[in-house]
């Protein structure tokens, strides 16, 4: 069948693109290899609507996040949890930043940063500064429903799940896509919004891979004690942790820089030991959903909870509810300054092929430029 655009991946970026183009009347096909949209990174992450606090070492990322924050908040407020105190703290030891630096950074980026006494939250001597900030968390399930509801009346947009491209060939001004279900589709425009699978598609089409470090990450869901209920805490900037509300689920997510990544791969097509135990579901060049995988690792809860317990005062208790696993690609160039640029790369002009890679939800607007 002929389409105006074929989009790989029904995460936020994929569905956002589908909606934008669908509303203009374009014929859009979305292929999603999982059984439903929003089953990987869009859902399995800290669900932070970034204001920029996270990037005291990358001013440009911070400014951009702050700018998009307001826009995302305007457009998608319905899926955000805003009624909690987001506390950022700087660890006294092993941190790449400190209280004074963080204050200065927030002033420069013009984002809210109000001093709180660190001893209100943390054990003595562990944090040299604590700050009340303005940041929200989004609920991926509500966001997903919004997109599905908006897309449902559009007859020109089709989302096909449990289906992925198996062969892609260029034929004059069109891409010929053969899918895993044997269907043949054709379009002059391909959008690769597969996030962790971005290089899989590149390999299939013979394009140079992004230079990426892959991490299999675990996000822990917790129930929390009363004092922590309306508080999110993030300790910066180094081997620390974050415990904050997870959308509107009533649960908190717990992550840590050292224990959240379980295994790492630097290969262009990520290779992991656990792939051999996945029963053929996952292999280099075709990443399965880690959260659904039979070979997912044992939880790092003992370590993550211990780290958080070390910092937090006793009354801020929390307990284990479950774990979510997902693959996270990190652009290698961004490791030093910890920036998280949203990369939108046009790899072929005619027919058009565009790959997008972003670790942040509110920079989705970066897509607008290439979609028009």
């Amino acid at each position, binding site marked *: 069948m002929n389409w105006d655009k074929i989009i790989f991946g029904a995460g936020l970026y994929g569905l956002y693109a589908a909606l934008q183009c669908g509303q203009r009347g374009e014929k859009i096909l979305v292929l999603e290899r999982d059984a439903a949209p929003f089953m990987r990174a869009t859902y399995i992450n800290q669900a932070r609507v970034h204001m920029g606090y996270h990037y005291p070492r990358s001013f440009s990322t911070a400014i951009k996040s702050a700018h998009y924050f307001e826009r995302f908040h305007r457009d998608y407020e319905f899926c955000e949890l805003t009624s909690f105190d987001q506390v950022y703290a700087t660890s*006294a030891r*092993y941190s790449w930043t400190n209280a004074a630096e963080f204050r200065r950074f927030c002033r420069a980026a013009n984002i809210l940063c109000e001093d709180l006494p660190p001893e209100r939250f943390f*054990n*003595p*001597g562990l944090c040299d500064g604590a700050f009340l900030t303005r940041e929200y968390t989004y609920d991926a399930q509500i966001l997903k429903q919004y997109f599905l509801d908006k897309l449902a009346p559009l007859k020109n947009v089709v989302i096909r799940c449990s289906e992925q491209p198996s062969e892609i060939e260029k034929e004059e001004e069109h891409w010929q896509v053969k899918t895993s279900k044997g269907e043949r589709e054709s379009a002059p425009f391909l959008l690769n919004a597969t996030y962790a699978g971005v290089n899989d598609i590149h390999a299939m089409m013979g394009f140079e891979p992004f230079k990426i470090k892959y991490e299999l990450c675990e996000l822990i869901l917790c129930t929390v004690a009363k004092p922590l209920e309306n508080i999110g805490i993030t300790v910066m900037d180094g*081997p620390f942790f974050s415990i904050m509300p997870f959308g509107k689920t009533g649960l908190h997510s717990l992550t840590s820089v050292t224990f959240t990544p379980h295994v790492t791969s630097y290969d262009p097509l990520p290779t992991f030991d656990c792939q051999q135990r996945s029963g053929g579901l996952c292999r280099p060049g075709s990443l399965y959903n880690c959260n659904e995988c039979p070979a997912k690792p044992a939880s790092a809860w*003992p*370590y993550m909870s*211990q780290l958080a*317990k070390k910092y937090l005062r006793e009354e801020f208790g929390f307990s284990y509810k479950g774990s979510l696993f997902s693959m996270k690609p990190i652009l290698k160039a961004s490791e030093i300054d910890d920036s998280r640029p949203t990369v939108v790369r046009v790899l072929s002009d005619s027919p058009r092929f565009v790959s997008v890679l972003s670790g942040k939800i509110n920079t989705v607007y970066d897509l607008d430029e290439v979609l028009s």
Partner: protein
Amino acid sequence: MNREKESNFASAVFYLHNNEGQITPFLERVWAELEQHFKQFEIIAVNDASQDGSVEEIRRFMAQKDRAMPLTIVNMSLYQGVELCMNAGLDLSIGDFIFEFDSLSLCYPEGQIFDAYRNALTGYDIVSVRPRRGRSLTSRLFYGIFNRSSGSNYKIGTDIFRVLSRRALNRVHAISATPAYRKAAYAASGLKLCAIELPSSAGADANQPLRFSLAMNSLVLYTDVGYRVCAGISLLMLLCTLAELVYTLVIFLGGGHPIEGWTTTMLVLSVGFFGVFLILSLVLKYLSLVVDLIFRQQKYLVEGIEKL
């Protein structure tokens, strides 16, 4: 032995400085004991700019372990000595209980590591394991002076290793952010401390020569030896000049006939020095107060509260 493993999280922090030969047996012993007794543990090696193959030995050791327990190596930028390094390791540790190994010496019986931990569970925040007799004369002298003048009930000595509770570490950090001398800081923390003495005096702290400047700093910071010695001397000098003043006055009033000009010279000298030593004594008092104010962030220390 089918005992239930401890659910407390254990951290082992050790100091590494060119210990290529000792590292593997040490790791094997510590790993085996921790794995046998604890559900969860971590090991932190603080590498104080080793120039030999110590770090490679650790990597080799880890490569043959199938169980993934985090072993972290903290690489110091340049040689900084055991106190600063161990502080760096402790700051990174996350355990409920922390084992502190200043040296890799293995001169204690097997099972001693866990024994020390069990001792801690009976209500001691700090348990140190040490040989019965101190080794060298200088270290005995230092500990002798220190213990006599620290004002703490607990005597410090040449420890082989220690177990600390998280509570103890928090307490020590509340008193001062980076303790200059951990042992003394623990003894001065006001928490319950116990020392297990091993029968032999063999091999304790083989790579730990007593460091003179550290010893002086500790005496100044954690005891009042420095203040007392200085105050004593200036008081003595004060008395001497006072005696001289009296003597001069007696000669002068008694109509003695020393060389011309002697009496006035002596009067000026003794009155002048009297003033100088008086001021010195006051300055010393101020200095000791300043050290106290800067160094101790908490005014009083409690061991615990008991309600009857």
